[in-house]
C-alpha cells in the first residue's frame, strides 16, 4: 500500500490536518467514558488492518513533514538528541529494529539489504540511499540512533538496565509533551516520573518498574497516554515554552474546534538484543476537535472524559485554562446516548 505523504507544517502557519482516513485510524485512547491512571500496558501485537497498531512501527501520511520538522528542531537545539557513551550498542540495536520493521512492513517505501555487516538502506520518501557497515559508526553520517530516528516518526529513548532500575541514558526527543531529555538524561525510572501526580500513591510506578525489568526480547508492549495541545505543534518542549505556552490564551469559542487538539502518545517498549537495553518509543498523534467529532462515538465520549476529569490531572496536563471552553464545544456533539465499549469507531 502506497502512502500519499502530505506537505504540511507543525509551526508558524500550522497547515497540519488529518485526512478522513487518518481520522478513522487515529488511536483514540479512551475505552470508557471516564479516565484515571492505570498500568494500561498490553502486548504490542499487530492490531486491526490500517489501524495505528497494524505494524510495530507506524508510518503515516504525516511522515515526510514530521521528519522536516524534526530536522528544524535539531538544527536549533542539538541537545534534543543525546546519548551517553555506554549506549552505543543500544543505538545499533535500535537502528536494526527500526530498519527491519520499516522495510518489512512498508516495502514500497523502504528497503534494507543485509550481507553480513554490510548493509544497504534505501528510504524512498526522504530520498536516502546509504551503504554502511553495521557496528561501524564512521560509515554513517550521524551516530546510529540519530541517523535512523531522523527517518522515523516518534521520539525514542534508550533505557539502560542496571541495579534493578532503568536509566534514561540516550534519546532523541523533538515531539514531546512538555518534558525535557536534556533535563532527564541520566535519571532513573522513579526520578524521571517524580513530577506525575497521584500515580505514585496508588503504586503505579512500582508495579510498572517491576514489570519492565522483566520485559522480554521478542515480546514488546505498548500503552497509550494523552494530553491536549493548542495548535498542531509537535515541539511542545520546556525549552520552547516561551513560544507555545502563550497559545493557551488564544483559544476562543469561535476557534476552539480548530485550535484545540487531542494529543495521543502511542508508547511502546522493546527489549533490545545485544545491549539488554529497552527502547521506549513515544509516537505523538494529533487531532483537532472538529476532526474528532466527525466520529460520533468519540465526540460523545471525549466530552464526558474531559468534563469529569480530576482537577489535579487537568492541571498536570496543562488543560485548565481552556478546558471549559472545550467541554462547552464538545457538549454540542453529545446527545447523551450510550457509547459502545472499546476504543474503535462504531
Amino acid at each position, binding site marked *: 500500500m502506497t502512502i500519499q505523504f502530505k506537505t504540511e507544517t507543525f509551526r508558524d502557519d500550522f497547515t497540519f490536518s488529518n485526512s478522513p482516513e487518518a481520522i478513522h485510524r487515529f488511536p483514540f485512547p479512551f475505552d470508557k467514558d471516564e479516565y484515571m491512571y492505570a498500568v494500561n500496558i498490553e502486548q504490542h501485537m499487530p492490531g486491526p488492518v490500517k489501524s495505528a497498531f497494524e505494524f510495530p512501527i507506524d508510518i503515516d501520511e504525516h511522515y515526510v513533514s514530521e521528519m522536516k520538522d524534526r530536522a528544524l528542531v535539531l538544527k536549533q537545539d542539538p541537545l534534543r538528541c543525546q546519548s551517553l557513551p555506554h*549506549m552505543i*550498542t543500544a543505538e545499533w*540495536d535500535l537502528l536494526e529494529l527500526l530498519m527491519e520493521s520499516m522495510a518489512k512492513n512498508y516495502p514500497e517505501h523502504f528497503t534494507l539489504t543485509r550481507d553480513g555487516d554490510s548493509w544497504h538502506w534505501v528510504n524512498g520518501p526522504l530520498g536516502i540511499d546509504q551503504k554502511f557497515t553495521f557496528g561501524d559508526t564512521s560509515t554513517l553520517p550521524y551516530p546510529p540512533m540519530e541517523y535512523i530516528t531522523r527517518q522515523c516518526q516518534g521520539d525514542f529513548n534508550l533505557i539502560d538496565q*542496571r541495579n534493578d532500575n532503568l536509566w534514561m541514558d540516550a534519546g532523541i526527543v523533538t515531539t514531546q509533551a512538555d518534558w525535557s531529555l536534556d533535563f532527564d538524561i541520566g535519571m532513573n525510572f522513579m526520578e524521571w516520573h517524580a513530577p506525575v501526580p497521584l500515580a505514585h500513591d496508588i503504586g503505579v510506578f512500582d508495579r510498572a518498574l*517491576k514489570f519492565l525489568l*522483566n520485559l*522480554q*526480547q521478542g515480546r514488546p508492549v505498548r500503552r497509550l497516554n494523552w494530553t491536549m495541545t493548542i495548535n498542531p505543534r509537535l515541539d511542545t518542549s520546556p525549552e520552547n515554552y516561551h513560544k507555545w505556552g502563550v497559545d493557551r490564551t488564544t483559544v476562543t469559542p469561535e476557534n476552539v474546534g480548530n485550535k484545540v487538539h487531542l494529543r495521543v502518545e502511542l508508547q511502546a517498549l522493546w527489549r533490545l*538484543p*545485544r545491549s539488554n537495553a529497552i527502547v521506549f518509543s513515544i509516537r505523538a498523534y494529533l487531532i483537532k476537535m472538529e476532526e474528532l467529532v466527525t466520529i460520533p462515538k468519540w465526540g460523545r465520549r471525549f466530552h464526558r472524559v474531559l468534563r469529569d476529569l480530576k482537577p489535579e490531572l487537568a492541571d498536570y496536563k496543562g488543560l485548565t485554562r481552556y478546558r471549559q471552553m472545550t467541554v462547552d464545544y464538545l457538549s454540542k456533539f453529545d446527545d447523551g446516548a450510550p457509547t459502545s465499549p472499546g476504543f474503535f469507531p462504531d
Partner: protein
Amino acid sequence: MSGGVEIPVRVVDVEQATQTVKRFRLAALSGEPLPSFSAGAHVVVTMDDNGRRMRNPYSLIDRADDGSTYRIGVLRTPNSRGGSKFMHERVNAGDQLVVTMPVNLFPIVRTGRKHLLVAGGIGITPIYAMANELRRRSASYEIHYAMRNEASGAFIDELRAAHGDRLKLYRDDMQEFVSVSQILPNQPLGTHLYVCGPEGMIDAILKGGRDAGWADENLHSERFLAPAGGEPFSVVLQRAGITAEVRSDQSLLEAIEEAGVDAPFLCRGGACGQCETAVVSCDGKLVHNDHFLTEEEHASGKKIMTCVSRLKGRELVLDL
C-alpha cells in the same frame, strides 16, 4: 504462553568437554539466524522425556558469527531430578529441543570502568560470554576461574587463547582458591564484580566484597537453583478449580503445568520473580528456596515462587 517466545531448535553437535560437562550447539529448526543476545543471558531449555516435560535454564556461551548456532554448557549434577541427566544421557546430535528467547538477569554494568569476572566450575558459562563482550569493547577486565583440577576446567583452552594473561586459574587440587583479599584491593573506583558458581563460593565472594567496603551496587551474582525435590504434597489451584499432586521428583511449577494451567515463569531458577504466586492457605510449612523474595516475605507465608519452592506438609492452596 507464559514463559515468553519459544524457538524450536535442533542439536547440531554435542561435545564432551570434561567428564561431567557437555557442550551443545543448537540451531533454529527454521534455519533462520538465532536472535542476538547480551552477555550474561540464559535460555530455558524444554526437554520432553516421554511426555514428562522438564525445563532448565542454561546460560548462553556464545552465538556463531552468522547467528546460525548458540552454545550452552551443561554440568551433570549428581542429584539431578532429571534435567541435566536427560541432557547428558539422551540428547544427541540431530535431536530437537525448544528454547526460550534469551533473558538476561546477569548483565554487564555498562557504566563500569573495570570488570572482575569470577567463576567457579560450570559458573564459567555466563562469565565466558561476558569476557568475550568486554574484550570486543576493549574494556578493562580480569577473569578469575576456579575449578577442581585442570581436567575439569571445561573452558581453559578457549579462554586462554582469547584472553591471555587476563585469565587467572585456581585449582582446588593445588590448594589454590579465589580470595577476595587478593583481587579486590587497588581496583579503580567504578569497578564491578560478577560472580557465578557454587552457592558457597558466591556467598564467600559477596561477603568478602561487602566486608571490604564495596557497595552492593558493584557486586553482582547469578545463581540458578536446581529446584530441589522433596516430599510429595497436594496443590489446589483455586481459580482454576484444580487439585494436583506434586510428586517428590517434581517442582511445584512443573506439577501446575502438568495439570494444564499456564502459570507465569521466566528463569525457573528462583531469580527473576516472574512466578511469584499468592498463597491462599497452606496445611504445612512453606520451604522457600528462592533468592527473590525478602526474608519478611518468606516469613509472611503469603507468597511463593513456584519454580524452586515447595511445601512440607499436606496441602497448599494457591491463587491460580
